[in-house]
């Protein structure tokens, strides 16, 4: 009881002590009341208070920072660590694994900072582009009507956004990158299997587009469309299996009998079972009479598609060997990193580019002119296709025209320190020409430089990406893409159903609905949170330090350790990230204001 009353008594005691003080103050101030009164009424003004409050707050803040600043400066001065920028000119003395040619251990600290910034910008820019593309696709897949695609996309998003980024980067680096083969056994692309499949995929895609074109143009009914889709898919799957099986084990995997005829009867049997299912399921559906009976065309398509593929293959009408092509490896993947081919502009690039520029100009003209025509007559024109045709057409013409001039007949070749004039053909045959000489003598405007190794496995040509860079890039891209996917999904779902219904009721096609109604409205929801994700990605890139990628922060810590200039070091890092973030926000805000809705 006594303890519970204690605070009360203390409060009373304080009040008792203050009472005479306030009485004294009141007595002292009483004569000044006429002067004070107008002042009090000014202070009671809401507007005055607002400004005064802010002034007082600013004053306190400035005083506080001044206090911290002077104290810190004094402390640092006593320890002999005055923050300056003079050390930036000193020799850095350390090598950076990923640096351009102009940097070495003899370069200055300032240059080391620049290398770090270049490396950060490299990973951030590439990361932003890849994460956006990947996120867009996964986001659309999240809304797919196909259960399997939707579930896989959902699993991808949930797994990736619910585990820490650092863990993911470590997995990419220590698990994935470290399990890659040694440089001698590097995985090369395209390898035989991949060439084999990818070339056929082009064929399938072309067929698919032709099919799509056909039923769009003639307005085939849903049943036939479904039958065609499923039939085509069955054709592709069975042909692929057949081709792969043929390639791998030299025989059809499910061959029952020996020889072609046996296989053919096998296909016929499978088709008969599928067709029986078609009618069986169709009848069940008809009895229930609830759902649109699309099972029939689906199964019908599958049955016919696989029968067609099987027949073609059985009788040897699909010569798979025709699709095989020997290619030089263009990409090397090993524990030392990823090496990609380079596309280099040759001496003739400028004149070729003039043609391309002309094509772009022409395309711009076509775009504006046809736009006006559409406004005047209402008739739609294939604007986009014509513009692409203009650019591609002129690029091809340019390629041919530029290539018409002969290559120089002789080149200067250096052998054993002596320059020697040699016929070009001979020099090429001997393989003694360096990249520069090849670029000078090539008749083509662009040259594809495939990666080449020396005897020790070091790459002389090609673009190299270290495992650190790849692990960081993959980690950032895949982690961020899961968030972007959710943003895209939310943005599309945020468009009210009524909008889609209104568009449909006006007779807009599915494409028109997407481009004219859904996207413009989804974008305004997507852009602000997308900007946040871009900022996150750019700042998360500083996790590079944990796997040893030479980004800004990583290099700065090394510099700070060597020079002791921590304050300046952190200052530079912060200013760099701040400017990067502000640049990204500025761009996103500019885009955002274009899509903002007008209300009131």
């Amino acid at each position, binding site marked *: 009881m006594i303890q519970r009353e204690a605070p009360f008594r203390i409060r009373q005691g304080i009040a008792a002590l203050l009472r005479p003080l306030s009485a004294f103050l009141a007595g002292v101030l009483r004569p000044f009341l006429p002067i004070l009164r107008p002042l009090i009424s000014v202070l009671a003004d809401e507007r005055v208070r607002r400004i005064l409050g802010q002034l007082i707050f600013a004053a306190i803040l400035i005083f506080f920072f001044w206090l911290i600043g002077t104290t810190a400066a004094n402390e640092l001065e006593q320890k002999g660590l005055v923050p300056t920028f003079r050390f930036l000119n000193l020799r850095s003395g350390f090598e950076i694994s990923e640096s351009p040619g102009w940097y070495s251990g003899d370069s200055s600290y300032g240059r080391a900072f620049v290398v770090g910034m270049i490396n950060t910008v490299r990973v951030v820019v590439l990361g932003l582009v890849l994460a956006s593309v990947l996120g867009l696709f996964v986001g659309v897949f999240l809304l797919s009507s196909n259960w399997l695609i939707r579930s896989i996309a959902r699993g991808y998003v949930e797994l990736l956004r619910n585990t820490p980024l650092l863990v993911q980067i470590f997995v990419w680096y220590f698990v994935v990158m470290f399990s890659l083969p040694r440089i001698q056994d590097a995985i090369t692309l395209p390898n035989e299997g991949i060439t084999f499949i990818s070339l056929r995929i082009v064929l399938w895609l072309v067929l698919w587009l032709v099919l799509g074109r056909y039923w769009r143009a003639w307005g085939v009914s849903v049943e036939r469309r479904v039958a065609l889709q499923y039939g085509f898919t069955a054709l592709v799957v069975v042909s692929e299996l057949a081709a792969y099986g043929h390639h791998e084990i030299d025989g059809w995997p499910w061959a029952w009998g020996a020889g072609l005829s046996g296989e053919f009867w096998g296909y016929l049997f499978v088709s008969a079972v599928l067709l029986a299912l078609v009618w069986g399921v169709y009848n069940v559906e008809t009895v229930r009479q609830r759902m649109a009976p699309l099972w029939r065309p689906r199964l019908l398509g599958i049955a016919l598609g696989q029968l067609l593929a099987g027949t073609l293959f059985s009788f040897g009408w699909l010569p798979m060997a025709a699709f095989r092509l020997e290619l030089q490896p263009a990409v090397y993947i090993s524990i030392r990193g990823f090496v990609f081919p380079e596309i280099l502009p040759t001496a003739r690039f400028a004149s070729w580019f003039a043609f391309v520029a002309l094509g772009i100009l022409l395309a711009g003209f076509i775009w504006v002119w046809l736009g006006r025509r559409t406004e005047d007559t209402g008739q739609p024109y294939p604007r986009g296709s014509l513009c692409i045709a203009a650019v591609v057409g002129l690029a091809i013409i340019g390629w041919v025209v530029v290539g018409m001039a002969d290559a120089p007949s002789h080149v200067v070749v250096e052998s054993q320190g002596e320059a020697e004039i040699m016929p070009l053909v001979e020099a090429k045959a001997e393989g003694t020409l360096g990249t520069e000489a090849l670029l000078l003598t090539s008749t083509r405007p662009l040259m594809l430089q495939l990666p080449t190794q020396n005897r020790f496995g070091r790459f002389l040509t090609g673009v190299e990406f270290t495992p650190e860079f790849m692990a960081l890039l993959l980690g950032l891209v895949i982690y961020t893409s899961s968030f972007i996917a959710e943003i895209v999904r939310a943005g599309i779902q945020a468009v009210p159903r009524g909008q889609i219904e209104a568009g449909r009721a*006006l007779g807009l096609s599915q494409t028109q609905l997407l481009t004219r109604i859904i996207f413009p409205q989804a974008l305004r929801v997507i852009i602000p949170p997308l900007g946040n994700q871009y900022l996150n990605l750019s700042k998360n890139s500083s996790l590079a330090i944990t796997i040893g990628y030479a980004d800004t922060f990583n290099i700065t810590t090394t510099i700070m350790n060597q020079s002791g200039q921590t304050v300046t070091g952190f200052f530079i890092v912060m200013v760099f990230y701040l400017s990067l973030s502000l640049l990204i926000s500025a761009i996103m805000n500019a885009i955002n204001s274009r899509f903002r809705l007008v209300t009131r």
Partner: protein
Amino acid sequence: MLEGISAKADSAVEDTLREDTEPIIICREVNKWFGDFHVLRDVSVEVAPREVVVVIGPSGSGKSTFIRCINRLEEHQEGQIIVDGMELGHDIRNISAIRQEIGMVFQQFNLFPHLTALQNITLAPSIVRHRPRAEAKEIAMQLLERVGIPEQANKYSGQLSGGQQQRVAIARALAMEPKIMLFDEPTSALDPEMIKEVLDVMKELARSGMTMLVVTHEMGFAREVADRVLFFDHGRIVEQGTPEYFFEQAQHPRTKLFLSQIL
């Protein structure tokens, strides 16, 4: 199915016209389910050109679903719907052709918020009907004049009142020069003052000879404008007839109960 239709006194000419022409909408034994819920049960209706049909009924009775089936915003599972001689099935050519013939006005207006009133109206005529821009604009301005708000042409839907939005929505549907107009509770989301301005536009439209199907709770409108009233309950047409018949001499107990509650 045409029994119970009696033309109003002033439209004797129309009456003879109607006898000559085929029905523009034919529904035969239409059935629809949402999962296990049977929304429409054997709905059979024929609508003649220039006829104004008002659909009423308690909420959940399937009246909105019914008119949404006519331009295939909802898919019916059984029976036939034939609009202007084209059957609504899975054939996408028919669906888009039919949608171009049918204008629809929604309860929530559904104007496109990223476009101005004028752009809302010109969008479909220019990209679906391929009208020159100048022509589409001119038609749009005429329509805005007709619904009484030409001065709001360059405002966005967020800057318009509910009644103005709904009038722009009507103009937008009319811009496609439809043969039929569907109204899905067009005044239910409006303030009482704004209901009148929208109903006035609809009355003018009915007088001009547009074929209209209107789902509404505005009994005054039904009495004044309708050629025929359909009463829906539990997915079925319980009773139908001229407004005079329907409001005075309805026979079915369910209709009587409904009318006693709202009148």
